[in-house]
């Protein structure tokens, strides 16, 4: 009954006062029975206050019910729960199911968009989709072909739809959206196709475009104020982006926005990261290539950039900066600070003051990271805030047609998009990571619109001299910049973590296990093997007073492509070939939701 009431309330708000949209989302994210955002809350903590399932009883978890999505591709993201209805999305063709939790998941409605299949091969690394968002009685779907659709949550009828990009130019989407205030904010993919990427705000009620801010471009395109927008405390100055590219290369510059968005209602700011500069051959694009690989803080009403921080100037390794920005309030040197913590592909865990953009911590969250010795934290230094690149691992310095060996991490990063969680009970971040290194050889490529534009050959292998596995699941202290504990995993951990008030942290593995570990020690408390490898994010909800945990299985994504056949170590000689596990020996394609609960 409460669900009906809440739905009605949502509908009422939409009709009368759209500016309060964020209050609907805020109210619902404060209610742990529901999950209305992929990120669980605006701060992207992925923390649930539910505690029925706890460190003491999680070992008794059982499968409560299951649901097949009917699609056999990589399943990223997670379902949503609003009232008594669960909303499940799929990879391309991006079907949406509304399931009735009162009737064991009976299908209330199904929405299947018609999309041109020619979008499939334009999506780098599988046709994944990182899920829906809910606000004000509407389910928002951002399809592979960049169509943004608002669906009536009750009926599945289309409220409005708008096209954000052109797949024929290589513009696609894999990301979720951010519903905030009276807007829906969306990103775009296409870094391997030379797309000039951006974030765009649409009116939540009509789908009308409100603002668009590019990652790379003129000041007007960026929506940046040369005198007020800051980088490490200093104004960025005029033409801060285009002067860091040769000629008009910025027009095909990349900086795509396929990651997660977080939002601070007090500062009225949204946070996200931009991706790699196009091409992967650094020699072909001299300069810092701003603002690729950058943390952005923007005003959500106007899109105005408050501050930026470029983590990897002039990328030489494809270390996209798109991973989530987790917002917490913690004490630093005895003072309460509004923090932003980000685990970058480049292997550094960054903590910044999210109000000012001041860099507070930048430490390696995997000890094998070697492409840079450290990030320069000396404010008086010329290279303040920059990574100190090791010449041996610099594909720029080694040059075209030279194979730079033993670079850690590999291009997929110490962590990719799979989101981390934060528990305010332990003040620890729980981070799914990759433990993979690479050889990288850049070479010259030409640009053709709508065609991939890569320009480097890669070979990847498990981090040498370590445990032989390709992943770790770690707990991280964001203020100290230190690993609290680390669990070795055979494969990269490609599943989003969930921390709960029951002192349990959940995550999935590529073999298909759902795992529950102790939040304090990392000790494994429970595992269950689902039908396919897990690249989805763990979610939890409460129905009729009982807590459930849900996970999408369906191996794929870059993990399914890179690890299906198993890796080899090109430097270890022929004896080692086949010495590393092939994912295809452990799991197969699938598309299934598994829901767990404690026995009655």
């Amino acid at each position, binding site marked *: 009954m409460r669900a009906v009431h809440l739905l009605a309330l949502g509908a009422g708000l939409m009709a009368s006062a759209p500016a309060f949209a964020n209050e609907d989302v805020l109210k619902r994210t404060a209610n742990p029975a529901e999950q209305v955002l992929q990120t669980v809350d605006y701060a992207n903590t992925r923390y649930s206050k539910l505690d029925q399932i706890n460190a003491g009883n999680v070992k008794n978890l059982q499968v409560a019910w299951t649901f097949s999505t009917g*699609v*056999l*591709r*990589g399943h990223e993201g997670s379902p949503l729960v609003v009232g008594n209805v669960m909303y499940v999305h799929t990879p*391309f*063709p991006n079907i949406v199911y509304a399931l009735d939790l009162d009737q064991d998941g009976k299908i209330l409605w199904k929405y299947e968009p018609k999309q041109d*299949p*020619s979008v*499939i*091969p*334009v999506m*780098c*690394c*599988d046709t994944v989709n990182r899920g829906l968002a809910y606000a004000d009685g509407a389910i928002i779907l951002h399809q592979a072909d960049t169509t943004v659709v608002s669906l009536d949550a009750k009926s599945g009828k289309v409220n409005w739809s708008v096209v954000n990009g052109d797949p024929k130019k290589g513009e696609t989407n894999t990301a979720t959206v951010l519903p905030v205030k009276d807007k829906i904010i969306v990103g775009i993919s296409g870094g*391997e196709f030379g797309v000039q990427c951006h974030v765009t705000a649409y009116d939540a009620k009509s789908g009308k475009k409100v603002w668009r801010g590019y990652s790379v471009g003129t000041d007007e395109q960026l929506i940046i104020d040369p005198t007020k927008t800051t980088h490490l405390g200093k104004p960025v100055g005029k033409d801060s982006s285009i002067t860091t590219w040769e000629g008009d290369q910025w027009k095909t510059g990349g900086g795509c926005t396929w990651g997660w968005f977080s939002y601070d209602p007090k500062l009225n700011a949204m946070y996200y990261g931009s991706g790699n500069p196009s091409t*992967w051959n650094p020699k072909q694009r001299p300069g810092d290539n701003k603002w690729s690989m950058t943390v952005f803080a923007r005003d959500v009403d106007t899109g105005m950039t408050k501050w930026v921080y470029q983590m990897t100037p002039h990328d030489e390794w494809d270390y996209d900066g798109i991973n989530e920005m987790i917002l917490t309030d913690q004490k630093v040197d005895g003072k309460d600070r509004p923090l932003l913590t980000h685990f970058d592909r480049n292997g550094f865990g960054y903590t910044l003051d999210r109000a000012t953009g001041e860099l507070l911590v930048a430490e390696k969250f995997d000890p094998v990271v070697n492409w840079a010795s450290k990030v320069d934290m000396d404010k008086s230094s010329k290279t303040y805030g920059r990574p100190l690149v090791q010449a041996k691992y610099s594909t720029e310095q080694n040059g075209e047609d030279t*194979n730079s060996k033993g670079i850690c991490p590999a291009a997929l990063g110490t962590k990719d998009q799979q989101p981390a969680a934060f528990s305010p009970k332990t003040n620890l971040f729980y981070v799914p990571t990759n433990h993979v290194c690479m*050889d990288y*050889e850049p*070479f010259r*490529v*030409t640009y*053709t619109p*709508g*065609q*991939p*534009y*890569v*320009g*480097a*050959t*890669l*070979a*990847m292998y498990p981090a040498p001299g370590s445990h032989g596995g390709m992943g770790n699941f770690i707990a991280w202290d964001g203020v100290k910049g230190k690993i609290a504990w680390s669990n070795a995993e055979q494969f990269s951990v490609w599943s989003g973590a969930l921390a709960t008030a029951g002192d349990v942290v959940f995550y999935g593995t590529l073999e298909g296990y759902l795992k529950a570990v102790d939040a304090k020690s990392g000790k494994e408390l429970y595992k269950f093997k689902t039908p396919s490898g897990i690249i989805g994010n763990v979610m939890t909800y409460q129905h009729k007073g009982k807590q459930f945990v849900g996970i999408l299985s369906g*191996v*794929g994504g*870059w993990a*399914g*492509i*890179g690890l*299906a*056949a*198993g*890796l*080899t170590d*090109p430097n270890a000689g*022929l004896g080692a*070939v*086949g010495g590393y596990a092939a994912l295809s020996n452990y799991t197969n*394609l699938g598309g299934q939701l598994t829901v767990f609960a404690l026995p009655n």
Partner: protein
Amino acid sequence: MVVTSGMLADVIYKMGETSLHYLSKAAIRPVLAFVALASVATLSVHAQDAKPADAALANQLDPNDKSGEQDPKLLDKYQAVKVEDGKYIDKDGAPTYHISNDGKKFDWYAYSGYRRYHAECHVCHGPDAMGSTYAPALKDSLKRLSYEEFVGIIAGGKKNESAGGQSVMPAFGDNKNVMCYADDLYVYLKARASGAMPRIRPGDKEEKPEAARAAEKECLGG
């Protein structure tokens, strides 16, 4: 004059380029695929000219390799019978690989194909042509595909429908980073298909032939 397969790829590409002014991209793709298929006749005539293999052309594979899954029939079929400007040709007149020094040294095209594959193809087809959850293992596909079919597919793309969903390969007909290296990719994948090349990065290589340099320059357009 004998038409080599490299020239064929050049012709196909140039035709695409000049046609660009008159046709939409979508229209070019089938044309390219058609040209590729129509050339079968030319090549089979050429095949009859093939001379028997001499000892210098014999492949010397790594005697200790366990990862290549060598296929004796294909190793025989893909054996080079002659070499022209550093490009090896098999008895069917198609480009092929050449391996020497106990599997340590590869011809330029096999080496270049390894590099191009791991830039353009591996993001769907997986490392070392081993396949992925997303796209088939080309080390297996190349056991079946002829040179002409191969060039036709990379130029024109491919669509498969299965119970699990659609899989779609894009048309690379107007992508110079792929089409200018069609022979390189083909030679590399043949070496993987027959098991002549294990799951390794080719270490030593034959010098880049002048012909490859010239063809690359012309195809890429500077």
